[in-house]
Each structure stands twice: as structure tokens, then as C-alpha cells.
């Protein structure tokens, strides 16, 4: 539904903007995540059926599972597999380079930046593959985030490198690939619980932030709405989605960016260790992180890190996805409509930008979720024809594990990109009233999430 570039008609006057329509299928990263994720999955199934899974395993190579104990051992791995890493690099470079170019990125900027990202990712995997990594809490998501932050804020990378540090694109691809290991039956059975829990907490958090901001601190209600959904639904993406609904100012969104980024980073680093100190089950912690973290990428980093600490990454990530993606992200269009209605009907007309439009539910729908559902259904159907023994002896090592490795690559690209794009000096200064309104909401969000995930639905999330 975005504008086309043909806004200047033949008669020389500004034309009415046309909907993006089908162009969205190749101009939005959500759709590219769907095409790449499903394409990779189908490619993997075809290779498996043809008995050529070695190709897929080669493309999915990483040193994360090496458990090396000496640099000679690590060096030997890279020397022995140098050609495979070269093919893999070219594979990712072509996939991401071509698609980001179609979306408008410059290849002269993308290629050098992606080389840098790939090399750093290899380093991350190598650290994660050290035999003593777990002993020193060197979980790949946390190390990637911290290393990225240090590089971005100490060495001042040029801004053009951001063209390859596409946090959202990588996480969306990772989520679609995650669908390949996510039984559709789990989505159908656990989805309603996740939606109920997430909706309750999101509503409470948004209302708390809004009323604290407006009633206690007298802040602009457009700002209150923008940071309210930022803290309650899905961070900056939610803030941007309702910004036009309430006619928010640029500084309102800029403020939301700062608050969301700072608190999301704090929670990535804190929630896994708090969960461990409490001895939480991986599924319970994943659900808690799913209600507490604002952004998908940040939540994945936290849930994946804790899952590794607890020895069950799969469970933590699954609970997180159910809570965050199914429970919160899907409904962003409805939030946008509700705020447009409030702005139009309740607030003064002069402050409103437009009237509510039900079609926004689809326009603002995070389309990558379609890929997640499709991957889940496709793999559930495909693997349904195998016995448990065949699944474990053939399907898991030759199809599921290589796809999981490709997904991990996408996540490592993402976690590094979070750090590499976070330049604290670029963030907007935030007033104390705004900070406290948001922070009180965060406190409510985290507390309610803990209560429901641990005490009310604890047995449920630990057994999904």
C-alpha cells in the first residue's frame, strides 16, 4: 500500500499515489523472508529426496558444535573446510545481496559490509564452539551483541555499512526457517493460550504507560500512545505502525526508538541471568521473555541465550515465538485501527490524521508470519509420513539439523547486526517524565509476564 514512484503524471501535476499492490511481494523484506525461507526449505526437501543431503550439510556448515579445546584443532577445522566456507559465503552473499539490491540497497555498500559481518559471524560460531564456552557464559547471542556494541561505539563504523546489517530481515528469515522445526499442532494448541496471555499483558502495559504519561506527567497524548504501543506490543515497529494513526511527530517516534532500544538491550542482558538465578524451566522463561521483550530480534537473543544456559534452547525459543509472534505481533493492525479510532472519535479532530480503515489489519500484517505458518505446515505434512525411527535416523540429521544450522546463521547475523547498528551517540535524548512513564510500564509488563508465565501458566509452558 506504499506509494509508487510515478507520482508525477504526464500533464505535469502531482498524481494521486498508487498502492504498491503486487510490488510489495518484492519490495518488502517480509515477503523476501518468506520467499527465501520457503525456498530454502523446499530446496532442502528436494535434496533429501534425491539423496543429496550432503550439499545442504555443506552449505550449513559452522564450527559451533566443534567443541574445540585448542587453536590448532580450530585452525584444522577451517583449513580442512575452507572451500565449504567459501561456497557458503557466496551462497549467503548472493541470497542477501540480490534481494537487498532489489529492495533498493547499493551493492557497492552491501558487499564489503556483508564480508565484515560474515567474518564476525565465523568468529562468533568459533567462540560458541569452544569446549569451555558455557562455563564462561559465552553464549553466542550475548557475545555477538556485546561485540557488536563495542565495535559500533568504539570504532565508529561508517553508516553506509548498515546496508548489510539488516536486523529485521535476518530475524524474519530465521523465524520462517524456525517454522520448519515447529509442529503446526503446537501452534494450534498453544496459540490461543499465548494470545490470551499476551493480549492481557499488552493491554495492561499500554494503558499504564498511556495514563502515567498523560495523567501523571501531562505529556502529549500522541507521544503517550506511541511509547505505549512500543512498550506493549512490538517496540519501534508498533510505534511506527500507529504513528500515522495518531498523527505523531517525528520526535515522538525518535523518543520511542531510544526507549525501546535501551530497555531491550538491558533485558537481553538481564532476563537470561535472572531466569537462571530463579532456576526457571526453559519454556517458562521463553514465555516470560516473550511477554517482556519489545522486539523480535531482542527477544530471540534473550530466549536463545537462556535456552543454551538451561540446556534446552529449542523449548525456550518455541515458547518465545508463540508468545511474541503469535500472541503479540500478529495483531499490530488492530492496534493501529484502535488508535486511529481513538484519535478520530475521542480526541479533538484537529489532532487526528485520518479515519480508521479495517484494511489496515492486512496492510500492516507482518507477512513473514505467513512463511512461518507455511513452513510449519509443509514440514509437518512431509515428516508425517516417516516413522519415529526413520525420522531420528534419517530425517533429523539430513534435513532438520542442516535447516536448523541455516537458521542459526540467520540469527547470528541478526544478533551481531543489533550491536553493530546501535550507536548510542545517535539516539535521541529523552526527558525524565517520558523515561519514567515508559519504565513504569516496563515494570508492569515484566511483573505481569512473570506472574502469568511462572505462576499461572507455568506448568503449561514447561510442557509444550
Amino acid at each position: 500500500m506504499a506509494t509508487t514512484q510515478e507520482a508525477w503524471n504526464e500533464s505535469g501535476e502531482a498524481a494521486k499515489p498508487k498502492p504498491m499492490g503486487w510490488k510489495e511481494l518484492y519490495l518488502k523484506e517480509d515477503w523476501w523472508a518468506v520467499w527465501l525461507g520457503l525456498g530454502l526449505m523446499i530446496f532442502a526437501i528436494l535434496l533429501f529426496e534425491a539423496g543429496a543431503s550432503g550439499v545442504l550439510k555443506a552449505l550449513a556448515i559452522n564450527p559451533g558444535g566443534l567443541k574445540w579445546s585448542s587453536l590448532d584443532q580450530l585452525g584444522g577445522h577451517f583449513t580442512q573446510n575452507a572451500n565449504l566456507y567459501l561456497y557458503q559465503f557466496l551462497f549467503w552473499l548472493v541470497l542477501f545481496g540480490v534481494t537487498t539490491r532489489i529492495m533498493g540497497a547499493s551493492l557497492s555498500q552491501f558487499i564489503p559490509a556483508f564480508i565484515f559481518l560474515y567474518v564476525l559471524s565465523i568468529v562468533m560460531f568459533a567462540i560458541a564452539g569452544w569446549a569451555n564456552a558455557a562455563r564462561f557464559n559465552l553464549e553466542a547471542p550475548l557475545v555477538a551483541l556485546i561485540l557488536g556494541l563495542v565495535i559500533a561505539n568504539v570504532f565508529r563504523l561508517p553508516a553506509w555499512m548498515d546496508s548489510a546489517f539488516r536486523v529485521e530481515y535476518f530475524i524474519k528469515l530465521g523465524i520462517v526457517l524456525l517454522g520448519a522445526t515447529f509442529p503446526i499442532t503446537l501452534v494450534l494448541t498453544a496459540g490461543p493460550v499465548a494470545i490470551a496471555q499476551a493480549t492481557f499483558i499488552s493491554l495492561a502495559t499500554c494503558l499504564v504507560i498511556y495514563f502515567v504519561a498523560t495523567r501523571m506527567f501531562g505529556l502529549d497524548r500522541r507521544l503517550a500512545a506511541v511509547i505505549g504501543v512500543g512498550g506493549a506490543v512490538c517496540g519501534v515497529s508498533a510505534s511506527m505502525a500507529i504513528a500515522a494513526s495518531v498523527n505523531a511527530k517525528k520526535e515522538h517516534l525518535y523518543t520511542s526508538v531510544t526507549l525501546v532500544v535501551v530497555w531491550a538491550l538491558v533485558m537481553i542482558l538481564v532476563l537470561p541471568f535472572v531466569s537462571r538465578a530463579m532456576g526457571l524451566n526453559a519454556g517458562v522463561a521463553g514465555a516470560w521473555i516473550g511477554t517482556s521483550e519489545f522486539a523480535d530480534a531482542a527477544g530471540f537473543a534473550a530466549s536463545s541465550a537462556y535456552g543454551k544456559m538451561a540446556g534446552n534452547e529449542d523449548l525456550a525459543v518455541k515458547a518465545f515465538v508463540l508468545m511474541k509472534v503469535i500472541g503479540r505481533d500478529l495483531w499490530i493492525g488492530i492496534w493501529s485501527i484502535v488508535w486511529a479510532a481513538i484519535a478520530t472519535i475521542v480526541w479533538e479532530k484537529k489532532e487526528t490524521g485520518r479515519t480508521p480503515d479495517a484494511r489496515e489489519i492486512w496492510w500492516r500484517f507482518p507477512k513473514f508470519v505467513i512463511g512461518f505458518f507455511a513452513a510449519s505446515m509443509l514440514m509437518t505434512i512431509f515428516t508425517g509420513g516417516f516413522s519415529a525411527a526413520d525420522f531420528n535416523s534419517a530425517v533429523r540429521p539430513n534435513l532438520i539439523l542442516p535447516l536448523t544450522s541455516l537458521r542459526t546463521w540467520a540469527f547470528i547475523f541478526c544478533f551481531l547486526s543489533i550491536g553493530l547498528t546501535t550507536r548510542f551517540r545517535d539516539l535521541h535524548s529523552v526527558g525524565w517524565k517520558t523515561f519514567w512513564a515508559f519504565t513504569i510500564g516496563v515494570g508492569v509488563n515484566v511483573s505481569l509476564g512473570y506472574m502469568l508465565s511462572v505462576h499461572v501458566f507455568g506448568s503449561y509452558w514447561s510442557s509444550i
Partner: protein
Amino acid sequence: MDPSQRRCGACRFFTGAPAALERAIPGLNILSSAWGSVRADTGLCGQSDTFVTAATRACTAFSGATPEDIGPSDNRRPP
């Protein structure tokens, strides 16, 4: 053109291109993206400094965009 048919997306003050939006709001790309579906056609009005959609009915400050404003690859410059 009938003034009532004018929309923000065709105005020179409208920034709707993803790259331009991410330049206009540093940090937007850290945990979000201007290339995502969720943004839909939301863009930034350089005249009022507020967010509008491309389909929003234009205000009295409407000024038609020129091809130079729009550019060849949707990288419309903020005014």
C-alpha cells in the same frame, strides 16, 4: 487536479522511501525496519514534521513532487 484528490504520498514534503526514512530517524533500523510490512505506507511529512500515510488527504501546504524529488530508486530526499 481536484485539491480534494491530492494525497500526501504525491507531495514533495512526504518522505516514504525506506532508506530516506531510516536516515531521517537514526536508530530506526536497530530493532525495526522501514522495509517491513508493518510500516505499510507510513511516511514523514517534512512540512508538519508528523507521520502520515501516503493516502492521507493532503493539507493546504500540499506541493506536488517533481521527478527530481522522487529520484530513480525511491530514495526521496527529505525536504
